[in-house]
């Protein structure tokens, strides 16, 4: 009996590495600390009522933000582990298989569990406010999306201490990810972690598409809509068309592993390259899913801090919609070396170069917006200014990679690694950070400290170039990706080692930048400059017309929109002495909180965990739980309520009274 338990535990828990024991201990301690704090301060009901069951987009956005910052930390630690291992030749810091697990989880976490939720955080925090709406189209579904994402992310992260991490690369190419080559449970964690959170992402795409199409304030025509909302629209359209492909691809891989099907196996007629095609039909649009909202953020930030209308609004909209279409026709550039005919490669090479054109248009629009503007260098503006040159270089190296014959040289080398980090960090991360700094006062009611923020920015920005510029050279020198170590001959005689060492220094500079940001947040919570006006930057769009943080119903009265930059117009009218129409409150229709999203997501987690370990006694009850939750929702009719007028009056008096 005891032997059996010991036997089980030694395969169930990951053992053998001091790093993992360290993680075990820190996870246990953190959990105990959280439980203790919540119990000691009697916060359990508060947590349940105000956060876990909430359907308020602003709170869901905050939860997304916290989760994504935690994931940024985990993914960043993975990155530093890799860079430490590669700093010098023949390092013994990580074993080969551990290194494989680390680069796999780094990639998966950064894209799916960091970038996606950070993007959804900004969707949630900003879009309804920018549209003059009271919530998203489907608040219940929104909450479900968040909890599905979180449970998927937790399931994926659990693999670090239980069962073993996936180690077949961030896209899990078969046959390596098939049962024949990865017999452990790591790939199952990968499949179910992403599958569960992917359902949530798909639902968010639908939710925000409908929100933008149907929930805009009266008078806000599509072409009067702020550009961030446009970017969310284009991103949501891509989500809707791309994520179903991911769902199917992962499901088929699961069937291969679970029922012995032969979609992607090497034998009995399977076709591994079909997986590579399918995963990139999702994977390439995915990078545009995450980068388009960043473009939207830059458009808002540049206009606000240049005190000018955005230059070329129509071309901005047109180029984003064009990107969202063309992004579906570039996927094969990830495997020019597959052996498709030259004609196929030519098609994808040209489509890849073509998609650079609308992106270039946007860069010029931002530059022309700044031209002759009254520019103030605030933190969001700083990140925007860091982004433009970085993304331009990243785009240029992308066009180099798009040249199919030349790609045979670059393919899977460090040149590629440097390229996609340049567009993902320089584009997506810088963009989201700009957005977070920009809208932070709106969300939390205070600004983030400027001095610490500038430290963080320069550490990130300089660290980025120090880290990734040497990698372009390393790629040309023949260093391939996913290499866990190199000999001292290549290291010193071929000159890999100095460049790798510099790159590692850069990675740690970025890590230091992140620490400054954590410091900045914790400092500003206590001492940050409070935003009493609701409009700390001199904003142009509707989110700045209401107090910070926004009341639960967002807008006491539905705003009437007549132009683009709606709030700017109101401010101009006020300056001219035009009085706003007298306010008349009406009861506000609000959705009720619900526990079903959380419970249903927990059931998905249980089912996913069961499937990971092939424990049907656990998976089936989990799925039954999901079904019961669906039915429970279908049978509940008491799902909304009205905020009475006197309560709105009281809330508004308290909020606005502060500002006078």
């Amino acid at each position, binding site marked *: 009996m005891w032997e059996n338990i010991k036997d089980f535990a030694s395969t169930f828990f990951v053992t053998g590495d001091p790093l993992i024991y360290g993680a075990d201990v820190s996870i246990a301690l953190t959990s105990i600390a959280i439980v203790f704090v919540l119990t000691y301060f009697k916060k359990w009901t508060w947590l349940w009522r105000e956060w876990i069951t909430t359907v308020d987009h602003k709170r869901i956005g905050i939860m997304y933000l916290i989760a994504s910052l935690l994931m940024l930390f985990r993914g960043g630690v993975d990155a530093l582990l890799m860079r430490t291992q590669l700093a010098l030749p023949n390092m013994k810091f990580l074993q080969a298989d551990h290194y494989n697990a680390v680069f796999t989880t780094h990639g998966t976490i950064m894209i799916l569990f960091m970038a996606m939720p950070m993007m959804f955080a900004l969707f949630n925090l900003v879009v309804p406010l920018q549209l003059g709406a009271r919530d998203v189209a489907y608040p219940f579904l929104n909450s479900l999306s968040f909890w599905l994402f979180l449970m998927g992310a937790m399931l994926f992260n659990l693999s670090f201490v239980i069962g073993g991490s996936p180690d077949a690369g961030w896209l899990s190419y078969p046959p390596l990810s098939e049962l024949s080559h990865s017999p452990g449970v790591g790939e199952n964690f990968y499949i179910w972690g992403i599958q569960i959170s992917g359902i949530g992402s798909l639902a968010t795409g639908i939710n925000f598409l409908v929100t933008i199409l149907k929930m805009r304030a009266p008078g806000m025509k599509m072409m009067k809509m702020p550009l961030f909302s446009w970017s969310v629209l284009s991103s949501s359209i891509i989500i809707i068309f791309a994520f179903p492909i991911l769902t*199917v691809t992962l499901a088929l891989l699961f069937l291969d592993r679970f029922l012995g*099907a032969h979609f992607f196996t090497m034998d009995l007629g399977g076709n591994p390259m079909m997986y590579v095609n399918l995963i990139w039909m999702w994977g390439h649009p995915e990078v545009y899913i995450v980068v388009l909202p960043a473009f939207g953020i830059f458009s808002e930030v540049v206009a606000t801090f240049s005190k000018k209308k955005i230059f070329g609004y129509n071309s901005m909209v047109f180029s984003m919609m064009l990107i969202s279409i063309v992004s579906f026709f570039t996927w094969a550039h990830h495997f020019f070396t597959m052996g498709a005919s030259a004609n196929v490669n030519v098609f994808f090479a040209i489509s890849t170069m073509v998609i650079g054109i609308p992106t270039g248009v946007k860069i010029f629009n931002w530059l022309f917006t700044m031209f002759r503007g009254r520019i103030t260098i605030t933190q969001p503006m700083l990140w925007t200014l860091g982004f433009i040159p970085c993304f331009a270089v990243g785009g240029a190296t992308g066009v180099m990679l798009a040249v199919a014959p030349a790609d045979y040289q670059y393919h899977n080398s460090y040149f590629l690694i440097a390229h996609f980090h340049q567009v993902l960090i320089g584009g997506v991360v810088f963009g989201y950070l700009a957005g977070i700094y920009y809208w932070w006062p709106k969300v939390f009611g205070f600004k983030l400290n400027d001095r610490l923020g500038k430290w963080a920015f320069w550490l990130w920005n300089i660290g980025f170039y120090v880290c990734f510029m040497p990698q372009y050279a390393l790629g040309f020198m023949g260093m391939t990706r996913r290499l866990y170590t190199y000999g001292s001959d290549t290291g010193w005689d071929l000159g890999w080692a100095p460049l790798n060492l510099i790159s590692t220094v850069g990675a740690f500079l970025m890590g230091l930048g992140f620490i400054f940001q954590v410091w900045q947040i914790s400092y500003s919570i206590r001492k940050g400059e409070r935003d009493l006006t609701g409009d700390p930057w001199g904003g142009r769009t509707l989110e700045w017309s209401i107090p910070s943080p926004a009341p639960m119903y967002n807008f006491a009265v539905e705003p009437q929109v007549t132009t683009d930059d709606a709030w700017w117009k109101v401010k101009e009218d006020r300056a001219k002495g035009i009085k706003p129409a007298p306010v008349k409150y009406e009861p506000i229709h609000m959705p009720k909180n619900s526990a079903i999203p959380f419970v249903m997501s927990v059931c998905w987690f249980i089912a996913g965990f069961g499937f990971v370990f092939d424990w049907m006694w656990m998976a089936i009850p989990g799925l039954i739980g999901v079904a019961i939750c669906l039915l429970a929702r279908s049978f509940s009719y008491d799902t909304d309520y009205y905020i009475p007028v006197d309560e709105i009056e009281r809330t508004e008096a308290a909020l606005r009274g502060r500002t006078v």
Partner: protein
Amino acid sequence: MAHATAEHSHAHEAHESHESLKVLGFWIFIVTDILIFGTLFACYAVLHTHTNGGPGAKELFEMPGVIAETFILLTSSFTSGLAVLAMHKGKVKQLIAWLAVTAVLGAAFIGMELTEFVKLVEEGHKISSNAFLSAFYTLVGTHGLHVSIGLVWMIGLMIQLSRRGVTEVTTRKVTNLSLYWHFLDVIWIFVFTVVYLMGVM
């Protein structure tokens, strides 16, 4: 009094527009579902000749049963349409009755499909036999799973209708359900054509 009425009509309006919002969302969900089936069809198109020397579509499929399934499902689509017509006339009993007929036909379809699958498996043609069969079972099975989920949904809705009658909310729910059911019918037409007809041709 006037105030109360205004308030009521406002509430009424907001509620109604919210229901139409949910129908729009459901249409978009169907778009995503089309993509799921589209991907599965693409996989089937790639793999349908990969039988690894085993029997292919021509040898395995028995058309009479499949044609019967097709007619049953098409009829159920028609009866779900009759249910919606009854709903627009406000006849709850008729509505529930037509939904019940639809559900029975759907269940018959699932029963026949399961019988077909069981027979194939007993003859040794499993999902793990070769890539063609993997793609076949997954594509047709995903459609069957959708129909089964639709059945549970339909039963749940019949209970709600019997309790609450035809309201804005139940109208929206029946509308979405019938959209879903017609959509599955369209998918089946493609399954029937691509998998079965072109398979035995």
